[in-house]
């Protein structure tokens, strides 16, 4: 499982979202959403609070069921064949999903075992070095700073070498140095052939990390463009004006 798992689809689309809708009570969060994400693409989903970004990521991850529509991950429907889709996926959430009483090494070893990672020891050592936590490998997660915890959360999310990494506002609470370290780790993940789906409020970081930006508003995509086609300054200004109008 150390080697990236083979896709089950012929085209290069690793995530295919088709007509996905989701409502919590009477509040519609996602309304007939369609999206295709291609291999090695870095896509950023922007939107104000409550736009449906986190809900969409949790549906892609199989943690929430859509009311309507389907999500295919590497050719597998996440609702129908979750056991086949799960090995392809890593998720960084608002919360670390780490056990405070376990050390850095123990947390990674635990998740490596759950994913059946071969040569787990070597893989964990390499990941700890990649995220710059080597001096702290025997420290418990509960004593780590927010930035270190986030780096460990990334290592946890990619311990099984997934095809797709979902990152839900990964820069929240990080200082400039920690953010730069995170960008380097995400860049390395993409350079190694991984696909990144990220949500953030920070459009500057979105343009820096990703090669495609989509904007989600009231459960629908209202903007979709490659970052190479976007004029950074005006885009950020327009987005800020839009966000102010929504808040």
């Amino acid at each position, binding site marked *: 499982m150390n080697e990236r798992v083979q896709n089950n689809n012929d085209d290069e689309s690793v995530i295919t979202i088709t007509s996905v809708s989701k409502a919590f009570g009477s509040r519609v969060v996602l309304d007939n959403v369609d999206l295709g994400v291609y291999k090695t693409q870095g896509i950023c989903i922007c939107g104000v609070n409550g736009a449906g970004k986190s809900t969409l990521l949790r549906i892609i*991850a*199989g*943690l929430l069921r859509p009311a309507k529509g389907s999500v295919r991950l590497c050719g597998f429907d996440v609702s129908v064949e*979750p*056991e086949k889709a*799960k*090995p392809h*996926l*890593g*998720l960084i*959430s*608002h*919360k*670390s*999903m*780490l*056990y*405070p*009483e*376990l050390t850095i090494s*123990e947390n990674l070893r*635990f*998740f490596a*075992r*759950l*994913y*059946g990672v071969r040569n787990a020891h070597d893989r964990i050592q390499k990941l700890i070095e990649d995220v710059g936590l080597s001096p702290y490998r025997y420290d*418990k997660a509960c004593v780590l700073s927010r930035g270190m915890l986030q780096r460990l959360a990334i290592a*946890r999310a990619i311990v099984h070498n997934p095809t797709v990494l979902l990152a839900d506002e990964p820069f929240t609470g990080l200082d400039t140095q920690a953010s730069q370290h995170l960008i380097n780790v995400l860049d390395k993940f993409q350079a190694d052939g991984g696909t990144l789906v990220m949500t953030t409020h920070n459009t500057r970081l979105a343009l820096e990390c990703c090669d495609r930006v989509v904007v989600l508003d009231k459960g629908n995509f209202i903007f979709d463009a490659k970052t190479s086609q976007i004029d950074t300054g005006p885009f950020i200004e327009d987005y800020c004006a839009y966000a102010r109008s929504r808040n």
Partner: protein
Amino acid sequence: MNYFCESLWAIFIKDIVTEFRSKQVLPTMIVLGMLIVWVMRIVSESASAGNAVMGAAALWISLLFSGLLTQERSFAVEEHADCMSGLLLAPVEPETIYIAKLLVNIIMLCVFEIVVVPVVFLAFAVSVDGRWVEFITVLLLGNIGISSVGTLFSAVVGLARTRGSLLSIIVLVILMPMMIPATFALLQLFNAIPTEISGIGTLAFVGSFDAAMGYMVAFDAVFVVACWLLFGFIIKE
């Protein structure tokens, strides 16, 4: 099968290590158990019931309530930092999570029993007349029954974002059918009641020690399998 064993072992070891490092539940369980035994011992001095009766009652009451403490913690530990999502993202079967959590709860209760049972024997001056195998079997069957129901409903209560009181009510009500033969068996082992009881009444319904063991085995078998099957459904929904 190999992956099942590996993921089961990973979750089991993780929970044991987490508990023994945080020391959150076991000390509380033991203190609660000791308190119950101590209160029952004081009551027994003025009660008409004999020491054997009070000893059996103290043992089951402390086991039930201390069990609730460890069971509530089973899934509370997964709620911290959304660790439950981390578990569910992995390709591990929900049933494997249940079995691992059940084993941890059984081990925790066994450790609790190792501490509390000698105290009960000393406090109430009870003996089992060399019937140690039967005594350990009764405790183990009770332990499995309490843990199987408690582990399932700990997940339900955790997912429903409610806390202890609901778990206590649900688990204690469901465990009632098992506690009757469990109490009967312990009373017999402590020589508090005759070998066979006939007539009308709850203990007479159980009848004999063998029947009590039979009821407990049946309860454990039904509830371990039912909870194991239900757990996957509850987690997925």
